């Protein structure tokens, strides 16, 4: 947003439509996967099994196990395709985006704060992709444990300690929800600090 920094009251410069659409779509797909995943969780809680505490219905999607699986495995293709496009775009645009944002940082402050912020934000983006990729890998391993036995094998590292690879996979797959929630929170706070409501609105569809 270099232009809007110079002229405070300038009209909001919206990100290109396809960028905004992709951004919202990403968010939607992750929410659908997380909510339907939590529905699956409730059929047999990862912690506690049949006697375990369930997730409040508010955070679930599908209504019952088959409905949750309909959503989870219905949207997983979109999720994987999205993640692929996202990673591809980042790899392609990384250099260009960093240069533009670097200029912005130099313009705005004598201190190095914006630069640091940017660095943190880049870290958040990168971690997000790693977490989402990990979610996909652990999910696939549980979706086809017999055909993709080689994907399950690395998760048997704790077997000597009495932790079956299946339970390790379930915990790992579930752990991506708190991880992505933390990263999303950091992303929201950082983008607010960088551009406030105007930046938010520039990305809203």
């Amino acid at each position, binding site marked *: *947003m270099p232009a*809007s*920094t110079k002229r*405070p*009251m300038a009209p909001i410069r919206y990100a290109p439509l396809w960028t905004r659409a992709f951004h919202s779509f990403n968010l939607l797909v992750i929410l659908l996967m997380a*909510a*339907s995943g939590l529905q*699956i*969780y409730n*059929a*047999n809680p*990862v912690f506690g*099994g*049949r006697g375990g505490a369930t997730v409040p219905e*508010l955070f679930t*999607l*599908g*209504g019952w*196990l*088959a*409905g*949750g*699986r*309909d*959503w989870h*495995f*219905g*949207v997983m*293709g979109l999720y994987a395709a999205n993640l692929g496009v996202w990673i591809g775009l980042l790899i392609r645009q990384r250099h260009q985006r960093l240069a533009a944002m670097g200029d912005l940082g130099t313009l705005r402050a004598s201190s190095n704060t914006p630069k640091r912020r940017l660095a943190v934000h880049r870290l958040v983006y990168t971690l997000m992709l790693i977490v989402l990729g990990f979610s996909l890998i652990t999910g696939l391993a549980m979706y*086809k*444990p*017999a*055909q993709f*036995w080689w994907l399950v094998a690395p998760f048997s590292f704790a*077997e000597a300690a009495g932790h*079956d690879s*299946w339970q390790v996979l*379930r915990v790992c797959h579930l752990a991506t929800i708190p991880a992505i929630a933390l990263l999303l929170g950091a992303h929201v706070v950082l983008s607010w600090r*960088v*551009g*406030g*409501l*105007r*930046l*938010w*609105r520039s990305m809203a569809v």
Partner: protein
Amino acid sequence: MATPADPLSRRRSLGLLLGGAPALLLGGCALNGVGEAVGTVTQPLNERIEALLQGKGKLPEFRPSQVDPAALLINSFNGTPEIDPGGYRLAVAGLVSRPQRLDLTALAALPQHQCVIRHVCVEGWSAVVAWSGPRLADVLALAGLSPLAGYVFIESADQYYESWDLASALHPQTLLATHMNGAPLPAANGAPVRLATPIKLGYKLSKWVTGLKLMATLGDRRGYWEDQGYEWFAGL
């Protein structure tokens, strides 16, 4: 950024945010019904990919020391049926040249195989189990499959019913198990005969199997859980 945003827009945006939250929650409940439509659209594609992924060869098995009897939970939609082993017969009928009524001695006379595999329940739990018994493929071969046969309909003593694609039924690790973890199959686990395989979810693995019927096409009754909305192929 030090930019003071337009107050009206800010207020409007915040209002939208606040108004949006309950709408999202309501939407979430309404979406539950849409899940079925999502499944109807995506399941055929998923099932085709699953069938393509599934090889004809044997998959790696677990070590017998990895068997965990306590992990295997019991599920049944209708209790445990009483079956007299002496009077038990397995009917093989439909698109076959030699319909069969096999007793337990006939099943025991077939080559016996053991599979140490992971039994995965759709609910999310799993257990490593050692199953043994004749291959389903060998039992079907006794009856002489018609080239028209594409599906196997499986009947159980408790009225549970299932249907499988023939390729999965003929897989070398698909057994009609009569033993579990080295001992005769307990009644709660499907005695005297149940299905066992590494390539299908638990709800495909009928217990107390009494009838196999070869069919050319899938009928209206595709399986007890499938008819309520669960995926039919259910490959692992």
